């Protein structure tokens, strides 16, 4: 069903949407996967807004539903999964959940750029990058293919690569960091203004990670993008994200401005995540792993709080009632233990003050911490 008259015609490529960064409003989004045990939710009732021109980070452990959320932005949840409820409104595009067929295909790539994890092989191994770029151009009816190649070369050059050479290479001839930049180039070359990066720095060495993060920031600002970064690495979001959403068991448990969330975490899961990071300075023993394991698709509790099994603040109400997202200043937190108070009185601080330490780290301190895959 045609929802928005978005002009994706080829001949007048950019600026058909009045361009500039689009805002994104995800509301009530649920994604279920069909399993032998019935349809199980991987993402449940997520409300998340990406304000135009911001970088939003989504953090969570493997299986928390963050990649599923990312794919939902392109209505690309892979079978046996499907979006069962909710909407993803993107400015200039409408609700992508209702897009189908050609309309959806044209939106992908041109309006929303998607960057895969570098370790994944996101390029056709048999074709040189340049030929795949031409495939992209033809798919989106770009008339000026030379211009497209020039644009790609410029983008690659700006990211510190020899554009001509890279376009002439195949995937196996590129390093992880180079592939990641090629992925970013592919996401941007059609002038998409909403970019989704799925684990952009995973499996890269520290120096390359830093380079990629700098590139993400720079490109984001230069091109005026709205960016969503999916990661399990708090250090990454601390570095690039303006806003942060923490996911657990398919739910967003806490979201808000990055500095606030990292500097003064309210949800016990966010606290646990931050405490689990080993610091460069200080005793290694201060890093405390979260006890227990995250739920899998089959073990996500149907009722009550998804985090309660591992939660130090657990009460009876957590078993029966799902905590609603409650505003605490600029933040939304879904936790019974934090609920009720104004949020500023540090609910639960007394309960586990022992391991809380005196000065909770600021966002910056997190950045300085060694980025372990530890969560």
């Amino acid at each position, binding site marked *: 069903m045609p929802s928005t008259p978005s002009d994706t015609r080829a001949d007048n490529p950019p600026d058909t949407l009045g361009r500039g960064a689009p805002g994104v409003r995800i509301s009530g989004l649920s994604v279920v996967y069909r399993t032998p045990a019935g349809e199980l939710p991987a993402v449940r009732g997520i409300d998340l807004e990406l304000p135009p021109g911001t970088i939003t980070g989504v953090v969570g452990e493997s299986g928390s539903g963050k990649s599923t959320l990312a794919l939902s932005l392109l209505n690309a949840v892979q079978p046996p999964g499907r979006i069962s409820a909710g909407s993803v409104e993107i400015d200039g595009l409408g609700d992508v959940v209702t897009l189908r067929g050609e309309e959806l*295909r044209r939106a992908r790539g041109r309006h929303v750029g998607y960057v895969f994890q570098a370790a994944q092989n996101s390029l056709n191994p*048999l*074709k040189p990058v340049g030929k795949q770029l031409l495939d992209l151009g033809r*798919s989106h009816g770009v008339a000026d293919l030379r211009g497209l*190649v020039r644009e790609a070369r410029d983008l690659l050059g700006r990211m510190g690569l020899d554009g001509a050479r890279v376009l002439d290479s*195949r995937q196996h001839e590129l390093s992880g960091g180079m592939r990641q930049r090629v992925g970013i180039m592919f996401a941007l070359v059609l002038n998409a203004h909403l970019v989704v990066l799925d684990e952009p720095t995973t499996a890269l060495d520290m120096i390359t990670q830093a380079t990629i993060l700098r590139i993400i920031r720079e490109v984001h600002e230069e091109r005026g993008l709205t960016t969503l970064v999916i990661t399990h690495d708090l250090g990454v979001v601390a570095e690039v994200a303006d806003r942060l959403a923490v996911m657990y068991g398919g739910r967003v448990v806490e979201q808000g401005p990055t500095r606030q969330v990292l500097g003064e975490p309210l949800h016990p899961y966010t606290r646990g995540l931050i405490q689990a990071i080993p610091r460069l300075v200080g005793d290694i023993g201060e890093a405390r792993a979260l006890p227990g394991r995250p739920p899998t698709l089959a073990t996500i509790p149907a009722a009550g709080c998804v985090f309660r099994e591992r939660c130090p603040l657990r009460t009876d109400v957590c078993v029966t009632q799902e905590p609603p997202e409650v505003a605490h200043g600029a933040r939304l937190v879904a936790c019974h233990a934090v609920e009720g108070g104004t949020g500023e009185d540090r609910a639960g601080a007394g309960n586990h003050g022992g391991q809380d330490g005196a000065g909770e780290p600021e966002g910056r301190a997190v950045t300085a911490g060694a980025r372990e895959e530890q969560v």
Partner: protein
Amino acid sequence: MVLIGVRARPGAIAVARRLAGHLARGLAMILVVTSINFVIIRNIPGDPIAARYEKLVEQGMSPDQAERATAVLYGFLPRGSLWEQYVDYMGGLLTLDLGQSLSTPGAEVTGMLAAAATWTVIPVLAGTLLSFLLGVTMGVYAAIRRSGRLGDVLAISGSLLHGVPQYVLALLLGAIFTTLWPILPGSGTADIMIEPGLTAEYVGSLAEHATLPVLTYALASYGGWILAMKSSVVTVLGDDFILAAELRGLTRGIVFRYVARNAILPLFTILALSLGLLFGGAIFIERIFTYPGLGLLLLDSITGRDYALMGGAFLLITVAIVIANIVADMLYTVIDPRVRSGEESA
């Protein structure tokens, strides 16, 4: 297109070196196999010359006469030691002289093989290519529709056909098309009443006679192709780059090409290898349809204890398989850039 410059391929020398290595190893392999064949064949019980001699004696010749007649018939008397015969045989190979047939006195083995090869190579080649094309196409559909009924039907038919032995298939097809519904000839290469030549009538008769053997080859290997292609496509469909291509909004046609090209790659190796078996793998079919190819020739040579012919047929099979292996390997170097550059850096 000027957009993307062409770099010189530094791999040419490496490829040539690789080929030379293959050839050297291939020759050594042929030598070893031929020697083993020689020893085995000479140790098969039953001596055709002694048998002929005894037959002549039985028919009333005196022993002396019989021995002379046998010697005249074959042009030699193998009285030398096994080692001398071996040296003689290998020496002959160098000049492509495979000796004289024992069961068909006076005929050169080389000539007999060449004549029979035509009747094997063309039908088997046709059958293999037919089943490859058909199997690969159907395999793609079976993979894409793997959760639907069409996919199930294709996959099950593939498994069934794959499981039926060639000779059962040949007998079934023979029974159907020559007896139940007699529309095709069941033996020979052409109607003997038709004058051989480049006439429409003769060629038509050739095609008609080749239909059943070709159909049998095709059906017998079709199941394997469909299953191999299906699993290959399913693997590629699960690859990240296919999802990435879809997320970039590439058209279905382009995504399909990405899938197909990547999926068919491993099948080329199987194809090259199966073409190597082309020279020896058709015994049952040729026997059932009395098609005078290499399989039938080999069979006759074994029952007739025709050492020379047996040796020649085995040699041909060996050479074909060795060459097919080399071709398969070199082909992969050419069509898969990853293998090619691996070679460069090695």
